[in-house]
């Protein structure tokens, strides 16, 4: 059976679903008002996640548009949006980063996976204000068609994609797992993508590609050493 934990839960307390709900509040989401935690670190490139008191509701935003600063793919971007939008919506509708896909809209399929400070998260589950102060990496920040990340390259070579709609999220999950542990074996890889749904059923080739990428990344590391 699938591992139904959201990626956000796996990241830890800073971004758990509990904290998400506590921080944002279901009623506030409906009303279009975000009550959010104030990041302590500057948004501009700090690798530190904001330190937050357990009960720390520090500011109230919205419903009208607010200006927010984000660190995306190594660049600082300023956007003015209603605080009710998610990180996914900002990536796509405001920043033109279309690689990250919306599929289920509730953290159940992994298609919108991006990295927050290197860890995989479902960007459909993150209100935009909670993305402040973190390093956000999308599929566009991982590599390009011309200069592919080893995981992207392995996906192409092993045909670990069919229609391709789940592919960016799948690749982000694999890349995060291999960054964390380049010695990941088949079991670790299966767990890493357990929240990524592919309706074309490409999983066997995803596993092959991930193992090939792991080998590739290890040899890159060895060469550097």
């Amino acid at each position, binding site marked *: 059976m699938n591992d139904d934990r959201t990626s956000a839960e796996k990241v830890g307390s800073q971004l758990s679903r509990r904290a998400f709900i506590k921080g944002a509040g279901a009623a506030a989401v409906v009303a279009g008002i975000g009550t959010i935690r104030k990041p302590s670190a500057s948004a501009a490139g700090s690798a530190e996640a904001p330190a937050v008191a357990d009960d720390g509701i520090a500011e109230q935003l919205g419903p009208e548009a607010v200006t927010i600063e984000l660190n995306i793919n190594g660049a600082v971007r300023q956007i003015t949006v209603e605080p009710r939008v998610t990180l996914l919506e900002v990536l796509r509708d405001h920043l033109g980063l279309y690689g990250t896909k919306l599929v289920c809209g509730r953290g159940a399929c992994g298609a919108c996976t991006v990295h927050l400070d290197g860890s995989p998260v479902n960007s459909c589950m993150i209100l935009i204000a909670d993305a402040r102060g973190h390093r956000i990496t999308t599929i566009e920040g991982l590599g390009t068609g011309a200069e592919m990340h080893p995981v992207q390259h392995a996906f192409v070579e092993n045909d670990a994609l069919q229609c391709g709609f789940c592919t*960016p999220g799948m690749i982000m999950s694999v890349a995060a797992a291999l960054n964390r542990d380049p010695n990941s074996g088949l079991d670790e890889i299966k767990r890493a993508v357990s929240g990524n749904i592919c309706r074309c059923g490409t999983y066997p080739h995803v596993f092959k590609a991930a193992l090939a990428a792991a080998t590739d990344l290890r040899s890159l590391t060895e060469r550097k050493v």
Partner: protein
Amino acid sequence: MARRLTLKLGFARQVQDVTVVVPDDEPTPWELDERFAVVGVDTPRLDGPLKAAGSARYTYDIELPGMLYGAILRSPYPHARVGKIDLAGARRIPGVRAAIARDDQVVRFAGQEVAAVAAISPQVADDALAAITVDYQPLPFIANMEQALKPSAPPVFASGSNATNAKLFEAGNVVHGFGQAAAVHEAIYTTQVQAHVSLETHGSVARWDGDQLTVWVSTQGIFTVRDDLMVFFALPPENVRVITAYIGGGFGSKFGAGAEVIMTAQLAREAAAPVKLMLPRAAEHLATGNRPNSWQHVKLGAAADGKLTAIELIQRGSGGIGGGAGSSGPYKQLYNCPNVRTEERNIYLNAGPSSPMRAPGWPQGCFGLELAVDELARRLAIDRLEFRRRNNSDAVRALEYELGARAFKWDERSRATPKKGSVRRGIGVASGSWHGLGRPGSQAQMVAYRDGRAELRTGSQDIGTGTRTILAMVAAEELGIPLSQVRVEIGDTRYLYAVPSGGSSTAPSTTPAVRQAAAHLKDKLFRLAAPALGAEIGDLEARDGTIRVRFEPSRALSFAEVCRRIPADSLSADGEHVPDYQGFRTNQAGCQFAEVEVDTETGIVRVLEVIAVHDAGLIIDPLTARSQVNGGIIMGVGFALFEERRLDPKIGVMVNPTMDDYKLPGPLDTPGIKVIFVEVANGVTNTGVLGLGEAAHVATAAAIGCAVFDAIGVPVRSLPITPDRVLDALGKI
């Protein structure tokens, strides 16, 4: 005008000379043991880098200047009369640019389209939907087949019964056949409604430029969408352009312009601005199609030697307000039996309409028939694979049984010690079939440019099967150039017609058109090359990136050198699909072996291994072909164990229209899969390619169902095989 050819066709076990008549301008169909340079080699798909980089632009990713966002209001009631639809509240919201109501007076399923809006952001569009008021008068509804067949049942359609007349098929005489049987097995098998769940939902982006309509659509058939839009808006074909560069899944649910596409174009016209409307996930579940359920009363009779003497199926199924619920295909075609009778009825419900889904009717029918076969074989104490062999008349499938059994170690595993303990393993085998022959009409254009590039254009679409790649491979093979030299342009109705991607017909229909276009272009290039080589046109061949004199490879010009002789900019030639030469054979076989593990305490079933043996004529790209088979199997695992649309009979509403409550197979549900291809040179077209996407899916759920029976000793006759059903079959609940 035509020429008679004798071709060497067949497969490993059976090679024969077959005479076919082909048009003069048609290349000689590929035969057994062709020496290919490009075809048959594992080739990563051409659009892989774009997809892996996230830069492939799907309909969902289209963004146009001044574009608005559309949203659709849907009926919360399964059956209701629709009175006044008040759009004023929506129109008053700042940022709302268009609001339209449908003029249907009755809605027949929860989720049917009622009204739509376009606004400056998705959020404002949602606000606008909430401001629309609709005067519904709820009507009695039907939520399942039991309710539908009650004499007092309210009619789903005003004009008639909730059950269609029986569709009958009869060969021989089943009464006679059952009379001859040494054993008769009779039982009822059921399968559930399965949803397609394409990851990219249905939707489109529509733009009007005067009376010119351009629509980007997530579709399997750009030309069918164009035709529907032409009819709806009364436009000539040249005024409608449909574009689908990439599509995030379809599986049979995305043909034609659905209500959501029509409404998007209407909104765009009213707002005088481009509109994008992609369905939310719940709407995708409710309104865009599904695989009908089935109730199959099966009766099989066999002689003591296992030869089937009679097959009878009394079937009903429902595709909601849609049809197409029949599942008799396998009963009529899988096995040799002189006496077959099938009777099928379609039942209407107040539920979203069905649409074709991966081998319509076959996975359902295959499950019922194959589990019944196992039950009958057990009664006769005949090995289940042997039983199938004795009733099989297909030479290719006979080889497939053999290859599969060897790879799976069927005999060894069948003899394994009796099952003990709470976790039990079992094995099963099921036969498949499909008719992936293609349909007429595909055309293609090949262009050579002075700089040596070759370009292929056709109005096909690549639904994720790798169409772009195999078309380019066929072109490269025919022109004798590397794949990297061929550029492919598809997914636009401005190109020549190609068939919609359904019925596994893209590869068999469109590869022959591409090959013929490439052959015609090659002829034109030969005419340029012949004088320079001092040779007759008939003595030339295109190989290894050159055009050269056959048997004298040193007398050669590179492809690029020949292209430099093109007088102006480019040279082009068209080709078409010539169906079909009958050839060696036109159909497909296939079989799958499965091993499962059943926890008899919890009822949880895991599929451990599947070995799939398939034939699809000539396999152009084994790498992407294996991907398709993997996918067919994994979708079959979902059908067998997890997926089901749950319609609450009390309220007539789907209660699981999400991706967490509707359970799809995920990475951890994936069995070990081995794919074996039997190559068949069938000579049915100039390429001899058959489609594979559906064939790969037919047998999986059946093989799993048979393996569960083997594991626990009692059959679970209903899909999905959920823990409660397993425990129920074991008498534990």
